């Protein structure tokens, strides 16, 4: 029998994507597209500009030349690979085992290789598009600073593509093995392991990078040691290192085909081994994934605890909050990520504590305040990522049940209220812990402590509102896996909008912090000036607007939802 082509098997996917684009355009998407192009363009320009400045400065250092830029590229690509493996594991679970088209594909006479390649391609595109987009301004900056010329672009694509294929194959293989080991739809066990694996991966990555060595050149006996460290590969057996070598070789005009050959042969070998593994394990794994779900026991704990605490709320809101909490803790794709979150918080605080700041007063005082202030941005970014994962999908996850909510007399404001606070309260607690503990570790002054905590509270309220709103504006009602929702187009727009908000608030507050640090540095009494009050008021107004306006937009959008 003649087998269908790979393009034919993938046809529903790209046709669906095209149709979505058409629908987007038909529903007044031009304005939305313009906003997206502007925000995306500004984001790209920002990344490009920052890297361009850093690379230009580093290139000017005679002795080190392109060594540090090469090292930085290696680290960036290494972090990309780590992110890609994790994201491919999660995506592969959906595309290989949970997707709705699988019944059709598996029951059709499509051979195993086509099925594997089609699903591998789907997983790769879903997991890697964001990383690929992020790589564009980064590699552009390298190309421009090192005068790579027009041909650098296709060359970079040639070097990056196999680097995307390898983690996709690894991710799919890990998922395939895990599904075979764990019975049925026990995604709880599966995803717990993924979360723990990811946590271990982050720690491992952190150790492999050894950032403290790069940050402290004075720790080396002489410059030669430092140069030797820079010359040595960070991780010689990883494709990220080969891609970095290939790209830097081209930019140094020392064209060595070896890294490219390594990249492509490895990618081809991995796809071959992945396909063989798929042939051996997929039928059994797929069958296991179709087996029945777990049975459950009586669970009155939430009603006695949270239910009693929320007794003052109207019954609809109370039931909604209780329902959301129960669903969260019973859905392993959701709660298992808390493990990773906890590890990340520990690593975060550990890093702050390990910073070599107190090596001499009064320089230490300056650094402490600088780090405390910049920590607001970093903690804000961490909270935005968490909001993207947990709050952004909140409305999308109601999609299939929306018939019930819309046909009942539930006020949509109550729904939005519940979703907002269920997400915001834990996020706020985390935000305050991150800033409070960090500031305590840094031993900052009361002024900085109050400023940080107040800013973090205002930012968290706004980030949460933005996440909920963008999740409502760009809902993904048909997605099988909640973990996939934030990687959508809307998730990207949310992250960009949040970064813009963080930047705006930090720029507004920087002047006030500068005034404070300056006064303290000069030994003056630090007083609250009118300028400070105006700046605080502006920052507060910005956060309030970023909370209230999006929530109103979300409510309007929800009222217009049709199912």
């Amino acid at each position: 029998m003649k087998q269908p082509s790979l393009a034919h098997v993938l046809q529903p996917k790209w046709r669906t994507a095209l149709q979505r684009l058409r629908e987007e355009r038909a529903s007044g998407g031009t304005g939305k597209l313009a906003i997206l192009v502007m925000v995306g363009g500004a984001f790209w320009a920002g990344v490009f500009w920052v890297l361009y400045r850093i690379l230009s400065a580093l290139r000017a250092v005679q002795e080190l030349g392109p060594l540090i830029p090469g090292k930085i590229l290696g680290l960036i690509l290494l972090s990309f690979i780590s992110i890609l493996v994790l994201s491919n594991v999660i995506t592969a679970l959906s595309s290989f085992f949970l997707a709705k088209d699988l019944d059709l594909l598996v029951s059709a006479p499509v051979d195993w290789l086509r099925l594997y390649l089609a699903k591998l391609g789907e997983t790769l595109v879903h997991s890697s598009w964001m990383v690929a987009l992020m790589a564009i301004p980064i590699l552009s900056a390298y190309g421009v600073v090192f005068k790579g010329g027009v041909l650098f672009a296709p060359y970079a694509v040639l070097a990056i593509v196999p680097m995307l294929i390898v983690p996709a194959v690894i991710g799919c293989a890990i998922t395939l093995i895990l599904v075979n080991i764990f019975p049925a739809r026990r995604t709880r066990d599966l995803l717990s392991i993924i979360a723990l694996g990811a946590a271990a991966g982050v720690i491992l990555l952190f150790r492999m990078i050894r950032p403290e060595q790069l940050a402290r050149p004075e720790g080396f006996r002489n410059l030669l040691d430092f140069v030797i460290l820079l010359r040595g590969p960070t991780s010689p057996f990883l494709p990220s290192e080969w891609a970095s070598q290939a790209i830097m070789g081209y930019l140094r005009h020392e064209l060595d085909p070896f890294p490219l050959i390594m990249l492509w042969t490895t990618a081809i070998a991995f796809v071959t081994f992945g396909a063989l593994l798929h042939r051996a394990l997929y039928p059994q794994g797929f069958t296991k994934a179709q087996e029945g779900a777990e049975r459950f026991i009586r669970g009155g704990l939430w009603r006695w605890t949270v239910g009693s605490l929320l007794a003052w709320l109207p019954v609809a809101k109370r039931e909604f909050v209780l329902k959301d909490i129960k669903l969260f803790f019973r859905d392993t794709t959701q709660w298992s990520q808390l493990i990773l979150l906890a590890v990340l918080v520990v690593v975060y605080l550990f890093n702050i504590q390990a910073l070599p700041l107190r090596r001499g007063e009064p320089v230490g005082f300056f650094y402490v305040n600088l780090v405390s202030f910049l920590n607001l941005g970093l903690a804000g970014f961490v909270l935005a990522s968490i909001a993207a994962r947990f709050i952004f999908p909140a409305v999308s996850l109601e999609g299939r049940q929306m018939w019930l909510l819309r046909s009942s007399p539930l006020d949509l404001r109550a729904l939005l209220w519940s979703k907002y606070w269920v997400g915001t309260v834990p996020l706020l607690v985390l935000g305050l812990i991150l800033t409070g503990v960090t500031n305590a570790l840094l031993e900052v002054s009361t002024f900085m402590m109050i400023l940080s905590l107040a800013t973090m509270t205002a930012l968290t309220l706004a980030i949460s509102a933005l996440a909920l709103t963008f999740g409502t504006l760009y809902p993904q009602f048909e997605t099988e896996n909640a973990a996939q929702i934030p990687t959508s187009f809307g998730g990207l727009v949310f992250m960009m909008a949040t970064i813009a908000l963080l930047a705006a608030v930090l720029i507004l507050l920087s002047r006030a912090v500068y005034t404070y640090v300056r006064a303290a540095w000069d030994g003056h009494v630090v007083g609250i000036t009118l300028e400070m009050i105006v700046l605080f008021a502006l920052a507060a107004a910005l956060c309030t607007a970023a909370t209230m306006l999006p929530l109103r937009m979300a409510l309007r959008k929800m009222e217009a939802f049709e199912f």
Partner: protein
Amino acid sequence: MIRLENLTKLYGSFVAVDDISLHVPRGVLFGCLGPNGAGKTTTLRMIAGILRPTQGRVLLGGDDVHVNPLSAKMRLGFIPDRPFVYDKLTGAEFLRFVAGLYGQEGDTVGRRIAELLEVFELTSWQDELVEAYSHGMRQKLIISSALIHRPECIVVDEPMVGLDPKAARLLKDIFRQFVEKGGTVLMSTHTLEVAEAMCDQIAIIQHGKIVAAGTVSDVRRQHKAGDASLEELFLKLTGGAQVRELAEVLGGMA
């Protein structure tokens, strides 16, 4: 009780529901019949307040569903054709949640839940997650949830799909008793025997328009169908010629 006035729904340029007006009085079990894609589900979803009409309005007991949604929806129990519910709630938890949406709480809710689970033979499953339920059990759970707040009218899309014969019979009896006590049921169905046996009045919808309405005898009279069965009448009104052509094509394949 249920009144549709010039109800129209457009999807882009496609007319899904075309200027439908209908009145279903209290104490009537009304059936909407029509081929696939005729606009039945769209009409029912507009009545339930899930879809917004492009034109026209829906009144439930005098309240416009889109102007006074809360008071209109308090009167309504809606049962959709696709039983999507929260997989990670147990059956009892789901029913309590729905009762909460209708502002009901306390011991009476607990008693009502127990009563409904008993009627639909789901008591032994009440503490199981919904993800473990079969299609038919989910359907029974959704029917229970539509009855939990004692609605005045029930709008139900394809009620018999997925139900075993016993549950289907139970549902027929429940609907019958419901209308006898003054309630109103508006249902869509493909099962013409069900419609003929259960419905006091019917409407046949084709291409988004009502092509016939009234009691089955009225419709027969309007279309000079003599003693024709509802199936023959339905095929006559909705394109029976196509069915014959289809039968010929399928016959040729054998």
